[in-house]
């Protein structure tokens, strides 16, 4: 399965899976870039323009890809952790984000004026609410040993209704310069704010992995839970923690989503994002059965999905039909990445090389 034992650094090794986990995402990005270059090179043009508020902002397809994939990228971070630790996926993130967004709006609406303090308080509350629901999912998974998909099916079923209930059956709007700034651009900075938030999240998680042993612990729990427990790792706590981290990601994604639109619609906020987030994790080369993981892969995966969507939009595909084309690309990607195909390809390449040059094969085998 994991055939990155051979580590020869020639160009062919990329095609043989020499990049390890990141092979598929990099191939996918390369394919998309080449396709777009052939189709229409102006796809990649980036320019400056001034928006309604008179700020100078960056503009272009690439920027809109990076901007609109923000929620997905944030969720992919948390989803990777949960996948790695529990060997299953959380399908309730969209619903949980709706709840977090509702809580966010509820606090914003409570005061007469929306100041910086209110926004921070609202965000903190949204985080707390999302963490509580994350802990609920986590308890079911870690303590009651229920499959993550089944456990989160509960919140998937009723989450959006809870969001509806929080706001008393309405879809309130919020309008404030601060919310607009979070959702689009901060005056004076040409980069969209959601992108900055994603970068901050990535840095935070990198620091977390740098200064704690969370990454190692998560991987060991995911690879073999009972072995990890026998080595003195509190597997229950690690699993629970991964869900709580996902909760924070959900809250951030929910708040970005709400700020972007300036309203909370419990039915359509981040609709179907759970499937995309899981897809991002899978495209990133992470094993959905848990174990070793790479956050960078998942984030790349998120951008690939968005790049694909925007490419399709640029080709004038109606938004309702995008899914069908997306599915075809997904199937091609996973077939390329499937262990059986990889094995066959590797064998084929080795045979080819053996015929060409036997000594090179021997050296490659030693290295």
């Amino acid at each position, binding site marked *: 399965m994991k055939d990155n034992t051979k580590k020869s650094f020639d160009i062919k090794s990329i095609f043989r899976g020499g990049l390890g986990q990141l092979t598929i995402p990099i191939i996918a990005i390369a394919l998309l870039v080449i396709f777009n270059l052939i189709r229409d090179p102006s796809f990649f043009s980036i320019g400056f323009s001034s928006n309604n508020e008179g700020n100078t902002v960056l503009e272009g397809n690439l920027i809109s890809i990076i901007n609109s994939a923000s929620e997905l990228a944030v969720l992919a971070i948390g989803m990777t952790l949960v996948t790695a630790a529990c060997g299953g996926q959380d399908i309730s993130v969209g619903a949980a984000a709706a709840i977090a967004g509702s809580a966010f709006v509820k606090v914003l609406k409570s005061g007469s004026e929306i100041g910086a303090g209110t926004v921070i308080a609202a965000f903190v509350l949204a985080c707390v609410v999302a963490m509580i629901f994350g802990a609920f999912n986590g308890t*079911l998974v870690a303590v*009651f040993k229920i*499959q993550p998909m089944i456990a989160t*099916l509960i919140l998937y079923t009723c*989450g959006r209704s809870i969001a509806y209930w929080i706001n008393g059956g309405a879809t309130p709007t919020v309008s404030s310069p601060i919310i607009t700034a979070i959702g689009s651009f901060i005056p004076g900075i040409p980069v969209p704010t959601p992108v900055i938030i994603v970068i901050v999240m990535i840095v935070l998680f990198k620091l977390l992995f740098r200064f704690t042993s969370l990454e190692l612990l998560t991987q060991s729990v995911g690879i073999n839970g009972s072995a990890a427990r026998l080595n003195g790792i509190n597997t229950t706590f690690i699993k629970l923690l991964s869900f709580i981290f996902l909760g924070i990601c959900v809250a951030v994604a929910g708040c970005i989503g709400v700020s972007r639109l300036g309203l909370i619609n419990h039915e359509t906020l981040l609709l179907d994002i759970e*499937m995309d987030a899981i897809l991002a994790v899978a495209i990133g080369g992470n094993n*959905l059965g848990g174990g070793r993981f790479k956050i960078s892969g998942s984030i790349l995966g998120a951008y690939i999905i968005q790049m694909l969507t925007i490419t399709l939009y640029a080709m004038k595909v109606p938004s309702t039909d995008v899914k*069908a084309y997306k599915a075809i690309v*997904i199937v091609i990607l996973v*077939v390329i990445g499937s262990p059986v195909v990889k094995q066959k390809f590797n064998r084929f390449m080795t045979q080819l090389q053996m015929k060409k040059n036997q000594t090179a094969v021997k050296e490659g085998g030693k290295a």
Partner: protein
Amino acid sequence: MKKNNGFREPLTDTQLLMTITICIFIAMYGLAMIFLQGGFLHVQQVFDLLNDNASLIIVSCGLTIVMIGGGIDISVGAVTSLTVMSCVLYLNNGGSIFGSILLALGIGLAFGIIQGALISYLEIQPFIVTLAGMFFARGFTTILSVNPQKVDHEAFNKLRETKIEIDWLGYTAKNGTRIPGRMELGVIVALVIVVLVFILLQYFKPGREFYAIGGNQTSALMLGINVKRTRFLSYVICGLLSGISGYVFMMHTGAGNATNAAGMEMNAIASSIIGGTLLTGGVGNVAGTFFGTMTLTTIKKIVVASGLNDPWWQSITTGGMLCFFILLQSVVLSRREKKKKAS
């Protein structure tokens, strides 16, 4: 409930979970009959539940087979929707009923075969493959038609109107006319499929092999079971049943719509779980799934009947009930495990 007292054969996990579900369903329905009365006293209520959910029952059967084999298929709802839309368009463009049935079966089979081949022979994770299948089917449905389409086919509409009327199960309406119990043809299809799948799982070799590969893949392989082919077969059956479910859905609604059967995959998974199927594989029973579907749909009726009219209560109660069943299963199974270890 039966007790394991050494003399009798102890209940297997499958039977235990199924028994719990059936008991709870009967208790729930009984309470509804006593406290809510109204429609619950008429047999027609049960018929209505069946009429509305025949396609869900069929899909859940297919999903149960896949889940017993240790897999998952989340494309079922989308395939149902695609089948409905294609059949409606085919009928409206002058197709025959026989042809439309073949088309429905063909679509289902095609999805089953492609997904099954990708999952079992190329060893790709089932969740991703069927997710792609779901995206494809949903997307293709809207490519076929974004607008709702109504069936405009004389023979089909006649078939659709055909209902089985059972007079002695009917009731007398307030104005004195006698209304017989009405059941749609789709219900018969659904019930036949439940029985067939039950027999397949219980008495035939492929059925037993599904349990074997779901329970422990390695030991199944050592027993000489062709694991890949068995897994492939489970997805093919599931795909086929999605196709049939699409046809039954069309018989019920008589129209195709891009949002048809939205969320059906999750309802089907929930029905299977309530019926005692474990996602880990190896445990499950299609009779339990049938009662699972009934429980899931009855609770929604009860919520409406008891006057909780706010739109959020239905799904919040469904979620709560799901939570209850999932926790119950977890507790029951872990207690049994402990007992097994102790003895």
